[in-house]
C-alpha cells in the first residue's frame, strides 16, 4: 500500500516528461522543416513527396541571401534598433507598470485602456501621417528615430507585462519589509525587483523580438538605413520559394541567440537559491 503513492508519483513524473517532450517536438518540427529547406539545393523545394532531410546539403541559397545587397549592414541596423528599443521601453515602461500595479489611483483603468488602444489600431494605416511627421521633424531614415518608434510600439506591451508581474508580487512582502525598517525604495529593490525580474526579462524578450521582426514602421520610415525586415521581408514574399525559406531561416537566428541569453532571467530560481 505504501508503495503505490511512490509508484504513482514516478508514473506522473514519467508522463510529465513525455508531455514536455511531445510539446517540444511539436514546437521544433516546423523550425526543422524551415532549416531543411534553407539548406537544400534550390530545386528541392519543389519536389514531391517532400524530403525530410536536406537534399544535397548546400549553403548556396543562404550565402546568396547573405551576399545580396545590404543584408549585413541591415543586420547591424536591426540589432542596434532592437537594443535601443529594449533600453528605452524598459526605462520608460517599467516604472509605469509598477505604478499601475502598486497604486490605486483615479484614471488607472482609463490609462490602461488608452495604452492598449494605441496598439489596437492597425499600424499600416498610420503609414503616411507617421512618415510625414518624421520627415518634418528631421527624423527620417535614421535608425535612432526608428528605435523611438519601436519603443512607442513596444511600450504598451512592456507596461502591461511589467504591471501584471508586479501585481503578482504580494504587496504584503513589501509592507513587511518596510515594517522591518526598509525604506520603500529599498523594499522595492530587495524584495519586489528580484521577484519581478522574470517579468522584466519577459518584457525585454518580447520587446527585442517585436523590434527585430517589426516591418511596417521600418519600411515606411527608412530608405537607405534599412533594418533587415524592411530590406527583406517585403520583397521576400515575392522571391522564389527557396529564398523565402532561406530568408525566413536567417531572420530567425539572431532572435534565437538573444533568447538564449535572456532565458536565464526568466527563471527566478524561486527566490531562494539553494547554494
Amino acid at each position, binding site marked *: 500500500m505504501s508503495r503505490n503513492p511512490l509508484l504513482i508519483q514516478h508514473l506522473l513524473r514519467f508522463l510529465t516528461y513525455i508531455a514536455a517532450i511531445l510539446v517540444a517536438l511539436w514546437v521544433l518540427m516546423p523550425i526543422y522543416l524551415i532549416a531543411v529547406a534553407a539548406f537544400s539545393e534550390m530545386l528541392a523545394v*519543389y519536389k514531391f513527396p517532400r524530403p525530410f532531410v536536406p537534399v544535397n546539403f548546400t549553403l548556396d541559397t543562404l550565402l546568396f541571401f547573405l551576399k545580396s545587397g545590404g543584408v549585413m549592414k541591415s543586420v547591424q541596423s536591426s540589432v542596434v534598433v532592437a537594443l535601443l528599443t529594449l533600453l528605452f521601453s524598459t526605462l520608460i515602461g517599467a516604472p509605469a507598470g509598477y505604478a499601475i500595479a502598486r497604486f490605486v489611483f483615479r484614471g488607472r483603468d482609463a490609462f490602461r485602456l488608452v495604452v492598449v488602444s494605441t496598439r489596437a489600431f492597425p499600424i499600416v494605416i498610420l503609414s503616411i501621417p507617421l512618415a510625414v511627421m518624421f520627415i518634418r521633424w528631421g527624423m527620417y531614415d535614421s535608425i535612432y528615430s526608428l528605435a523611438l518608434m519601436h519603443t512607442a510600439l513596444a511600450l504598451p506591451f512592456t507596461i502591461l507585462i511589467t504591471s501584471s508581474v508586479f501585481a503578482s508580487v504580494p504587496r504584503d512582502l513589501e509592507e513587511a519589509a518596510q515594517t522591518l525598517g526598509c525604506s520603500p525604495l529599498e523594499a522595492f529593490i530587495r524584495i519586489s525587483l528580484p521577484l519581478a525580474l522574470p517579468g522584466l526579462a519577459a518584457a525585454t524578450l518580447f520587446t527585442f523580438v517585436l523590434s527585430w521582426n517589426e516591418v511596417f514602421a521600418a519600411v515606411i520610415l527608412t530608405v537607405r538605413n534599412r533594418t533587415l525586415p524592411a530590406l527583406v521581408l517585403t520583397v521576400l514574399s515575392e522571391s522564389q520559394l527557396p529564398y523565402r525559406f532561406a530568408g525566413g531561416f536567417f531572420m530567425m537566428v539572431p532572435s534565437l541567440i538573444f533568447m538564449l541569453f535572456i532565458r536565464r532571467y526568466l527563471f527566478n530560481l524561486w527566490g531562494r537559491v539553494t547554494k
Partner: protein
Amino acid sequence: MNKNRKWFATATAFVLLLSVLLSACQPQTVEVPKEVIVTQIVPGEVQEVIVTQVVEVVPTPINYGNITWLSTQLRPVQEAEKVRGVILDDFPGKVEFIPEDEGPFHDRITAEVRTGQGTIDILGALHGNFSIMAPEGQLQDLTYMKDRLADRNIPDSFWNVAKLGTDKIYYVPWMQATYVMAINKKALDYLPAGVNVEALTYDDLLNWAKAIFEATGDRKLGFPAGEAGLLHRWFQGFLVPSFSGGVVTTFGTPEAAEGWQWMKDVWQYVNPQSTTFNFMQEQLLSEEVWIAWDHVARLKDALEASPDLFLVVPVPAGPKGRAFMPVIAGLAIPVTTTNQAGAEALIEYLTQPKVQITTLREVGFFPVVEVEFPGFVSPGIRMEGEAVGKQAGSPDALPALLPQGLGAKGGDFNKVFRDTFTRIVLNNQDINTVLAEQKVILQSIMDEAKAPCWAPDPDSDGQPCQVK
C-alpha cells in the same frame, strides 16, 4: 656586405614597382580636336588665325553621384541582385536600387511630396502606379525626354500611353511585358484532337482541361487567384474583351455574361488551391498545375529551370478576338528629386539598346526600344519571346490597353473585376444579377474618375466612359 646588397635590391624593386604603379595610375589622355588660336607670320603681316589642331586632353570623368532609385519592379531577391550587379554595371554613378512594395512605395512618395523633402531621385514602376501618382502632382513633366531619346525609336503608342490621359508625358517607357500561357508538355497527351495548341480558343482550353480531369481525376489548370496574383488583369485584358469586344462599355452585355459563364464552367477543372497561387512558376515547377496563365516574369523561373519540360503559347481567342494586355513599366522623376541630372542620365542609360538587351537577358522583361535580337538569351526567355511575338502578331490579335485615366480609382476598378469573379465563380451567384450590380459600381467609378474609354472600347471623346 650581403645585407647592403639585399637592401639595395629591395629598394630597387620597390622603386620599380612604384614607378609602374604610378605610371599606370596616370590619367589616360585622349586625342581631341580642338579649335585653337594660332599666330601666323605671313610676309608683311602678323595674323591671328583660328586653326584646328589635335590636342591631348585629360578627360574629366562624368560622375552622376548618388542616385536613389525606388522601384516596384524587379523586387524578387534574384532580380534585384541582377539589377545591382549586372544591369547597372556600366553606369557612371552610384545607384542605390531599392525595391519596394506598392503600398509603401506610394506612401513614401506621398509623404515626401507633402513635406517637400525628398530622398528618392528616380522611380521605377508600372503604368498603373504612375496613373495614381500623376494626378496627385507627384511626378515631373518628362515631355522633353521624348526628344532626347528620339534615336531610341520607342513606339509612339507607348509615349501616348505614358501621357496618362493628359497632354504631358509623365514617365519614360522602360520595359514591356505581357501575359502568356505556359504548358507542361505532359498535358499535350490530353489535347483534344484537331486543336492547335499555338492558336487555342476558349472552348479548346475548356475541353482540354476537362479532358485532363476526366482522364486523371486531377484539376491541372491554374490561375493566379491568390493575394498577390494578377487575376484582375485576366478579366480586364483577356476574358472580357475576347468575349465582348470591350472592357468597360460592354461590361454588362450578354456577350460578357458568356465570358463569365465560361469562367464558371472552366473553374470545375481548375486547381481549387488557386486562391493561394501568386506566381504560377511555382505551381508549374511543383507540377500542381500543367496549364497556367500568368505574367511572363512570373513564369520565367520555371521555363529557365526546365525549358524542355514546358511550352509557351499565346493566350486563347474568343468570339471577338484574341485579346491580350501589354504591360508597360516606366521610369519617372518625382518632383522632390535630389539629383535631377543623375535621374535623367539613368533614364538615358537604361533605355540604351545595349542595356535593354542586358535587361531582357537578366530579368526577362522585353525592350521598348529598337534592338537587334541577340543570339544568346536563355531557351526559357526565347520561348517567351516567341510566344509574345506570335500573340501580338496573330491575325485575330486584339490589344486591350492598360486602364487609363483612373487616377486614385485604379484600385477600385480592379476590385470590381475581382469581386465579380468572387461572386459569380466562387460564391456561385447568378451571373446576370451580379453583372447588373457591379455595372453600377463600375459606372460610378468611371464617372468619379472622369476617365474616357480606352482600346478596345471605342473612343469616348474625353467623356467619362459609359457602361452600356
